[in-house]
């Protein structure tokens, strides 16, 4: 199954939405409008969009503290996403989760976690349910390079492997866990190597090339859907910003930061689309304008959303007893 031209244009729009909404969110954070921390996804957009390309609405994603890109790519409403980041009533979790803890089951967003490695086993469990019910639905679970040093990574991959669960473990390798370089936290540089410990395929892909990511994901999704079990997909990518918005990044050289930006997935993909005649310069402008509008609409929606009523703070700790 290859991607249609329309689908590719849609992917371009998605990349742009992730980028522009992120830029805006970072700006709002610097302006003090966002409570808590913000973990910017700038630079890594091709991973989210590439993996989402072959996911259906009834498939799932699960994610991390750096998760908004994954959610947008899966189809989470940008308005409700941004409202959540601002802790507003119309946020997708009513303001209770915020940036690091978001879910929207209706579009297949299982959720994210402020605990590094915390979501892998839950995602594995959703994949288990997909299998238990004899569906062909699949789960894509995102996590960082540093998260692959947590015990939950090992246990979840082993369990998914032995039960052949329909799940993609997508490692977004941006070379850092907070301020620590990957090579200071592990001796393997290819996380995909770790797949061998579970006898599952480990695939490495250029995470700044959205089509390459999509291609690798397609194969892994295919395996998962047809009952062949999990894949570990490592996407090598770049974290443009600091660990959190405001991180001065003293631990990175100027050259390194410039290199990061050179890997920008968006102009690369745009170039491809134009070259292959899928997008004209005009169409590029149009998509851009639409995305700018969407971002503006999200900002307006989010800022206009009221703060949640204090009494909701006590709601939903327990369900209604039957």
């Amino acid at each position, binding site marked *: 199954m290859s991607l249609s031209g329309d689908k590719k244009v849609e992917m371009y729009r998605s990349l742009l939405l992730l980028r522009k909404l992120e830029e805006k969110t970072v700006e709002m954070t610097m302006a003090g409008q966002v409570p808590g921390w913000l973990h910017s996804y700038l630079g890594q957009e091709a991973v989210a969009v590439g993996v989402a390309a072959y996911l259906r609405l009834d498939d799932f994603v699960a994610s991390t503290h750096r998760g908004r890109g994954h959610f947008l790519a899966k189809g989470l409403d940008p308005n409700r996403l941004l409202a959540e980041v601002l802790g507003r009533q119309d946020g997708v979790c009513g303001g*209770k989760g915020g940036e690091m803890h978001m879910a929207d089951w209706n579009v297949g967003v299982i959720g994210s976690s402020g605990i590094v490695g915390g979501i892998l*086993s839950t995602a*594995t*469990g959703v994949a288990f349910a997909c299998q*238990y019910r004899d569906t062909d639905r699949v789960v894509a679970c995102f996590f960082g390079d540093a998260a692959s040093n947590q015990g939950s990574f090992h246990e979840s991959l*082993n*369990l998914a492997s032995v039960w052949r669960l329909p799940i993609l473990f997508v490692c977004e390798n941006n070379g850092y866990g907070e301020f620590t370089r990957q090579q200071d936290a592990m001796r393997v540089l290819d996380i995909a190597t770790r797949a061998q410990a579970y006898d599952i395929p480990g695939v490495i892909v250029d995470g700044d090339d959205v089509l390459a990511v999509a291609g690798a994901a397609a194969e892994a999704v295919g395996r998962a859907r047809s009952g062949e079990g999990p894949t570990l997909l490592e996407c090598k990518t770049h974290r443009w910003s600091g660990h959190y918005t405001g991180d001065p990044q003293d631990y990175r050289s100027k050259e390194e930061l410039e290199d990061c930006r050179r890997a920008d997935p968006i102009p690369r993909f745009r170039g491809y689309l134009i070259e292959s005649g899928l997008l004209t310069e005009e169409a590029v402008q149009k998509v851009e304008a639409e995305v700018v509008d969407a971002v503006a609409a999200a900002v307006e929606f989010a800022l206009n959303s009221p703060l949640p009523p204090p009494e909701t703070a006590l709601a939903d700790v327990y369900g209604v007893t*039957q």
Partner: protein
Amino acid sequence: MKDSRYIRAISEGLAEELDRDGNVLVLGEDVVEGGPFSVTKGLVGRFGTKRIRNTPISESAFMGLALGAAIAGLRPVVEVMFMDFLTVCMDPLVNHAAKMRYMFGGQYSVPLVVLTAAGAGGGAGPHHSQSLEAWFAHIPGLKVIMPSTPYDAKGLLKAAIRDDDPVIYVYHKGLLRQAGQMPEKDFTVPIGVADIKREGTDITIVATGLAVHQALSAAVGLQEAGVSAEVVDPRTISPLDTATIVASVKKTGRLVVAHEAVKGFGIGAEVAAVVAEEALDYLDAPIKRIGLPSTPIPFSPTLEAALLPTADDIGRAAREACGVAVEQ
């Protein structure tokens, strides 16, 4: 009504719920063979390995897996062989299962049951003997139950499986052979409702798990000394049925709280605190707590026996509270 043992009550409760609802399944280490105490024995014959499933030794992953299955609509029962092992899977339980409904704005139900054996006795040693219910009771979003009789064991298990919140189901190994009566037909025992296991007028003994039986036995001795003890079994630790406890203390004016867990910062503290908050004026004597002293559980049965709370300890505390001469 029919006779049953505690262990059988659990197996039957599981079998009935597995039968009733195809979403129910049992996961854990060697559950196919029955687990360490045979509570899942024989289930695989009826329900197959799809629904009765051995896991690798990876408590953290299979707990999280069960959570994922639960939010997707299944109703997993996860066995963690010994309560001591919950230390390796606190994160999925506490940061995820307990908070998922709340932090995601009410989107999810988490119908997950964790079945685990607590308690000491017989030289299981420091890593297979602890009673850690207080940890889970302190976490909003979790429910904690500790049945003391076959009736409660079955009724609460079935209620837990049907409940839409994560429930930690703690049974004491020492209770497995306990006998009792229960209905032939389907029944549940409501979560969150205490049970007065013995009525009395002079002193309230709130006891959980194995200590319920110690309290009942102490009550017999107390009766002989002219003290009428009421034994209240909360059955559910969280949410705690404070109304029943407070009402009992208001009636008797005295309170002893007994459990096997370490006394300090144990659930007995909460019971005492609630009473000191809500029924202070009714108290005719200081509240006494019985629990393990501040030590790990040693291996040697001699040492273990020196530490574990007994019926005598409860009886002695009750006599003191009532101002009745304490036997030597």
